[in-house]
């Protein structure tokens, strides 16, 4: 499989596979059994996730959000839906909250520091504690020089860390 779809984002319709597969089957260098096997591997998750029935259409915001390559550069005509802000989250808030705790490693805990016992005077300190002030991931101008919006490092500050 090429990723995503063709050899490169701007490679037109060229694919390592595609028409080359047809040629390989026709000239006998690739068996139809092997081709069936390849197709089964690709299509199994498609059917498992019921993408053939009642699957949400692609959010049209996908195109401007992917402005790193831009809609014009895309060689694939994605079947965009007409409704933006598609909510596909289901119970993900519960799940990610649980996973966030599960991925947290308690490395040190002395003097009964944790768990907290209703402390009355709490200080919250550091630039990693609060909300994101510079906007979320967005790769179009004027954010283009900072495609991964928040938490981006100043290289100078990294040097000073040493």
């Amino acid at each position: 499989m090429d990723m995503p779809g063709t050899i490169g984002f701007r490679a037109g319709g060229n694919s390592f596979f595609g028409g080359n597969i047809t040629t390989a089957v026709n000239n006998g260098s690739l068996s139809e059994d092997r081709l069936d096997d390849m197709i089964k591997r690709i299509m199994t998750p498609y059917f498992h996730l019921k993408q053939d029935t009642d699957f949400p259409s692609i959010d049209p915001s996908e195109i401007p959000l992917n402005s790193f390559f831009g809609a014009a550069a895309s060689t694939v005509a994605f079947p965009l839906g007409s409704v933006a802000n598609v909510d596909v989250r289901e119970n993900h808030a519960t799940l990610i909250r649980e996973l966030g705790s599960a991925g947290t490693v308690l490395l040190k805990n002395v003097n009964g520091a944790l768990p907290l016992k209703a402390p009355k005077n709490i200080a919250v300190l550091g630039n990693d504690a609060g909300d994101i002030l510079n906007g979320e991931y967005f790769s179009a101008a004027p954010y283009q020089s900072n495609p991964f919006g928040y938490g981006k490092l100043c290289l100078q500050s990294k040097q000073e860390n040493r």
Partner: protein
Amino acid sequence: MSPIQARKSLTFIPEYGTLPVGGGSGTGRLSYLVDPLTAIKARAAQDGSLVQYILNNTLLSTPRGLASLQPTPPDVCLVFLKTWAEEGEDRSTLLADWNSTAVVESVASVCNNTIVVTHSGGLNILPWAENPNVTAILAAHLPGTETGNSLVDVLYGDVNPSGRLPYTIAKTQEDYAFADITNSTALVTTRDPNAWQSDFTEGLLIDYRHFDYYNQSVQYEFGFGLSYSTFDISSLSVSKVYGGYNISSTPPPAKIIPGGNPTLWDVLYRATVTVSNTGDVAGATVPQLYLSLPQVPGEDPTPLKVLRGFEKVSLQPGQNTAVNFDLTRRDLSYWSIYQQEWVIAGGEIGVSVGLSSRDIKATSSIRVL
């Protein structure tokens, strides 16, 4: 101008904001974000607590930068550190970013109950870990959109932490010199296609296998992680469960399927231990099984221990349970670069089960061949 300098002049610098996800292909656009400060405010309101905050690291690391905290010292100081990681822009230090060491030392100098939380895409060295005023450390990694709530659940004990380190936190950055960070402008601009050659001379001795082999003390070892409860492991038994022919050194010939020779997944032995919650609260622990494979003459150094199984077990206080580890042919083998095959070595294979790579609670041994 080097590429790094060019990048720097273009880089827009958002200092403020928690780090819930990594960069590059590892990033994700969040539907919303519950940051730690917001979640702490909401939880603290239930207790009618005062929540004071300073989010400016420059201020925090300046003399009298904490003077606005009144009354002081607070009952608890929660310090949040972050470490950006992204494809195509490698880290140049194992410290957390934004002058993190000075921030922690400054806070700990006025607050004798300083709790540090890190958000990082990989390991950090923690030079302030032994500071007596740093009373707790949480490596929260990259928790995602509910990051604040995930953390509050742990801080207030609604969730008993059970995460374990999938890497070693050594004492200093120099301890990783065997697999050093490559930080070279010359390499960025080279046109020599061989300049980036890496020969992996560390062989099998990566991470904990290196530190174990050279008997080097570390800050927090591979597999380590605390709980609000305590756990123990006892009664290790290892028995042969494979009823077939005599076990051969190399896998018997078989039709190769996805995953390789299917006999590599034959279960040859099974180890069983009893895991107990010896503390006062419910929680989960992670018993870990390590094998000590024989050193084969002529082969590269064999690690003293290799992880070959782990399970997460939830237990009520006082409860215990049996945990089984199936040992496949592949688990008991090493990859011989000479034979280009998985090989079971002759001699004694040590079996250790513990609560981390250096907290071994029970040992045994087997001879497979």
